[in-house]
C-alpha cells in the first residue's frame, strides 16, 4: 500500500484504474479479444471527437465552472462552415475562421455573463445552449432553405481536418493528441495552470493574490466553445455535409469523461492526463461493448455504474491525499494541485 501511495494521490489514479477495470470486465465477462479491441478505430474516433471537447470542459471545471452550451456549439460549428463555404462558396479558410470566431463569440458571452453576475455557470450556459440551438436551426433554414447543407472542402482542408488515416482512423485523433499534449504543458508547467487551480480552489483568494480571474474565466469559456465548434467543423468537412443534430449527447458524455478522469466538479482538483484516460474509459465502455458478447443495450448501465464507482474512488483517494496534509478540508483546494507537480 505504501508503494502505491504516491500513485493513488495523483488526480488521474482513479481514471487509470477505471480504464483497466472496464477492459478487464469486458475481457472476463464479454470474452473480448484485446487485439481486436485495440486495433479497432470506432472507439478511438469516438474518444477523439469527445476528447477535444472534454479537455477544455475539464479545465474549465478545474477552474470552478461548467459549460453545457457545447451541446449546441458542435452543430453550430458544423453548420457555420457549411453555410459559409458550402452554401455561399467562400474560401474554406474564411469558413474555418468564421466557425472559430462564432465559438469565440459564444464563449465570450458565457464568460462575461458568468463573471459579471452571481448566476451559476450551469444556468447561464443552459440559456446560451437553448439560444444557439434555436439560432442554428432557424438560421440554417432561413439562409439555405434546408436543414442539411452540403459542403465540399478542398484537398488540403480535407487532409487536415476530415481525412482517414489507414482507411478507418479519423485525422481528428491527431488533433486530440496534439491538443492534449499542449494542455498538459500549459496546465501543469506554466503559471496559467497554477492560476486555474488557484481560481477553482478559492476564487476570492486567487483574485487577491493577483490572478486576473475574470479574464482567465472568459478565456476558458472561449476555449471550450471554440473546441466544440472545431469538432463540429471537422465533422462537416469529413462527411461533406453539416449535421444539425447529435450535439446534445456530448453534454453528459463530456461531463462524465471529465469526472471519471478525476476532476472535482467544485473545482481546484484534476489533471489533463486524467481527463484523457477518463475519455478513453467512456469511449471503451460505450463503443467497446460492440466487441463483446454483452448485449449493447446494457452499455448505459455500465457507464452509470463506472461513473459512480470512479467518483467514489476519487473521493477516497483525495481523502488519502489530504490526510497526510494538515487538517480537514472539504474541497481539494490548492493542496489538491500539489501532488500533480
Amino acid at each position, binding site marked *: 500500500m505504501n508503494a502505491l501511495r504516491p500513485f493513488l494521490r495523483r488526480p488521474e489514479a482513479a481514471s487509470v484504474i477505471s480504464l483497466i477495470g472496464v477492459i478487464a470486465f469486458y475481457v472476463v465477462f464479454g470474452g473480448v479479444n484485446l487485439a481486436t479491441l485495440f486495433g479497432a478505430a470506432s472507439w478511438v474516433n469516438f474518444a477523439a471527437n469527445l476528447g477535444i471537447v472534454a479537455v477544455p470542459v475539464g479545465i474549465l471545471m478545474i477552474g470552478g465552472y461548467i459549460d453545457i452550451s457545447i451541446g449546441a456549439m458542435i452543430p453550430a460549428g458544423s453548420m457555420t462552415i457549411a453555410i459559409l463555404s458550402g452554401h455561399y462558396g467562400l474560401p474554406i479558410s474564411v469558413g474555418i475562421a468564421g466557425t472559430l470566431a462564432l465559438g469565440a463569440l459564444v464563449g465570450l458571452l458565457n464568460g462575461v455573463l458568468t463573471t459579471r453576475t452571481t448566476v451559476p455557470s450551469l*444556468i447561464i450556459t*443552459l440559456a446560451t445552449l437553448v439560444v444557439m440551438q434555436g439560432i442554428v436551426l432557424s438560421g440554417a433554414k432561413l439562409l439555405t432553405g434546408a436543414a442539411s447543407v452540403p459542403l465540399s472542402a478542398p484537398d488540403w482542408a480535407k487532409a487536415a481536418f476530415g481525412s482517414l488515416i489507414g482507411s478507418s482512423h479519423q485525422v481528428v485523433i491527431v488533433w486530440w493528441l496534439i491538443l492534449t499534449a499542449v494542455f498538459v504543458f500549459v496546465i501543469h508547467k506554466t503559471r496559467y495552470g497554477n492560476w486555474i487551480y488557484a481560481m477553482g480552489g478559492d476564487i476570492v483568494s486567487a483574485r487577491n493574490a493577483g490572478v486576473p480571474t475574470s479574464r482567465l474565466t472568459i478565456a476558458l469559456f472561449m476555449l471550450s466553445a471554440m473546441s466544440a465548434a472545431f469538432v463540429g467543423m471537422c465533422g462537416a468537412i469529413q462527411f461533406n455535409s453539416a449535421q444539425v443534430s447529435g450535439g446534445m449527447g456530448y453534454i453528459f458524455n463530456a461531463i462524465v469523461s471529465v469526472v471519471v478522469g478525476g476532476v472535482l466538479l467544485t473545482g481546484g482538483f484534476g489533471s489533463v492526463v486524467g481527463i484523457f484516460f477518463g475519455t478513453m474509459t467512456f469511449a471503451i465502455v460505450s463503443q467497446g461493448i460492440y466487441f463483446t458478447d454483452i448485449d449493447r443495450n446494457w452499455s448505459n448501465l455500465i457507464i452509470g455504474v463506472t461513473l459512480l464507482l470512479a467518483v467514489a474512488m476519487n473521493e477516497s483517494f483525495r481523502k488519502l491525499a489530504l490526510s497526510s496534509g494538515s487538517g480537514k478540508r472539504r474541497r481539494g483546494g490548492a493542496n489538491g494541485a500539489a501532488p500533480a507537480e
Partner: protein
Amino acid sequence: MSKNREGRSSRLSLGSLARRPEAGSFVGLILVYALFAILGGAVFVGAPGWSSWLNIAAEVGIVALPVGLLMIAGELDISVGSVIPASQMTTAIIAGYLGLPIVLGIACGLGVGLLVGLVNGHLVTRTTIPSLIITIGTMFAVMGLTLGFAVLIAGSTSVFLVPDPVTKTILGTFLFGMFNVSILWWLVFATFVFLLLHVSPVGNWIFALGGDRDSARNAGIPTSRLTIGLYMLSGFAAALVGILQLMTYQNAQVATGQSFIFNSIMCVVIGGVLLTGGAGSVIGIVIGTATFAIVNQGIFFSGLDPNVGSVIIGVMLLAAVLSNDGFRAIALKYSTRKG
C-alpha cells in the same frame, strides 16, 4: 434569504410586491402571453390554444415542482429524464405485456420512481459527491436498466398497453376532447407542494437547507431525511408523468423523457428559483412552467419558424436570471445590511 418571505407580508406596497421572488416571472408571463396573443390571434387565445399549452405545462410542471424544491434546497436531479421511461415501461410490461392487474402495474411504476429517488438521496447524503454527478450516474444506470430489461422481457423497445375505461378516465383522458386530465393532476400536485413549502414547517426546513446546510443541521433539522424525501418526491413525480403519458398514448417508449431534464430546470429558473438555493416559491415555479409552455406551443400558432421558440426561451431564461440577480440585490438591500 428565507428571511425575506416571512413576517412582512401584511403590508402591501409596491416595494414588497417587487421584492417577491416571483414578481419578475409574472411580468415575463404577461409579456409572452401578449406577444403570442397578437401573433397567434383568436385561435391561440381560445380553447385550442389554452389546451395546447396547458397539456405541455402539466407534464413538465409535475416534474418541475419537486425539481424546484430540490433546487431551493441546493440540489439538482438529472435522473428524472430516465425515470419517466423507466416507470412507464415498468407499468406497460406488468399490465400490458404480462397482463397482470393495472393497479399492480401502476404501483410498481411509481415504486420505480420512489426507489430511484431513495438511491439518489442516500448517495447524495452519504457522500460529498455533488448531486449533479450522482444523478447523471443514476440517469445513465436507469436508462441502461430500462433498455436492457425492456428488450430482455418484452423483446422490444416499445410496449403497448390498453388501459381499462376507469384507469383511462382518471389518468389518460382528454376533457372536452382537448384538455388532458394531467392538467388536473398538475394543479393537485402544485397545491400539495405549495402547502408543503409555504405552510408546513417542512418548507422552512427546505429554505434553511438551501441557505446553509451546516447551520440547518445544527439547528436540529433532519437534513439527510429531508434530502432523501425530496429526491423520492421528484422520482415519484417523474414516475407519475411517465404513467400519465402511458395512459394517454397507450404506448411505452424507452427513449422518451430526456427533454424533461433541461426543460424542468428551465421552468424552475424562469420561475425565479436560482441554483444557489435558499430562495424561490411554488407560485413562481408554476408561472415559470406556464411561461415555458406558452412559448413552446404558442410558436406553432404564430406562423414563425418553430426554432425561434428556442431562442425566445433562452433569452427569457437569461432575462429571468439577470433580473433575479437585480431583484435579489434590491431585496437584500432593503431587508438586511451586510456586515
